[in-house]
């Protein structure tokens, strides 16, 4: 392991609170319509307490940490899922109005409504 961390510098960096360290990209779906974007992200095992949704001028970042820890005394016989946190970064060129973003998390699915910024909405130009 130490050989690997010396070869790949990013492995040696400790995972900060903001970066989730080892992360998996979740299944997501992004649909554009006239007023905005509807984003659906599958985050099984993530509760509201483990979810971080950050919107900055250039990117929307979603980090979901799973809430469940394997109880003492449980032995894993067969594993297919991964314990890593979910991380999704979607970049946009100020196309989204950050103040009007609405998100809700139900049953492990996050629905985010991202309204388009006024500046990029199509407008009719009257010809004088």
């Amino acid at each position, binding site marked *: 392991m130490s050989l690997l961390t010396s070869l790949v510098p990013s492995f040696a960096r400790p995972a900060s609170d903001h970066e989730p360290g080892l992360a998996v990209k979740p299944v997501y779906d992004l649909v554009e319509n006239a007023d905005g974007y509807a984003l659906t992200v599958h985050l099984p095992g993530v509760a509201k307490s483990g979810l971080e949704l950050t919107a900055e001028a250039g990117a929307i970042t979603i980090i979901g940490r799973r809430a469940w820890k394997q109880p003492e005394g449980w032995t894993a*016989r067969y594993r297919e899922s991964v314990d890593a946190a979910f991380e999704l970064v979607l970049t946009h060129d100020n196309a989204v109005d950050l103040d009007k973003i609405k998100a809700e998390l139900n049953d492990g699915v996050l629905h985010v409504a991202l309204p388009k910024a006024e500046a990029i909405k199509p407008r009719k130009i009257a010809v004088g």
Partner: protein
Amino acid sequence: MRIVRYNSPSSYRGLVPSRSPWSGLEGEIDRLFQSALGDIASPVAAGRFPVDLYEDKDNTYVRAELPGINRADLSVELVDGSLNIRAARKTREGDREESFTLNRSVSVPDAAVQTDKISAAYENGVLTVTLPKREEAKPRKVTVAVN
């Protein structure tokens, strides 16, 4: 209308810290494949979801990652030694409603499980089925006297 779909958590490559030097190139190649294959692979068409099996001394546990399912559309049945988990996911897009069924079977030896005490809970998109073991199947220590 532009649709971007990402169907499978690419865990083999996702388990690299996100700022690896290759993430830019990998991102580009992913997008190339997505735009080529995006229309063929409809969302969650694979119908497979990850399942984990755990055990402690009293129970066997089956955990399945099934985000976004209504409890009414979720069915767990034990038939002939097979635990069948069936789920229907309905998505609404404008006026259309699409429905996908997901299902998976795990074999459970009937002799080892108290079949009438099986319970299941669905929380945060994860279904946990608890199968209590029969007394005979619980680990017991047998001391053998040696003459």
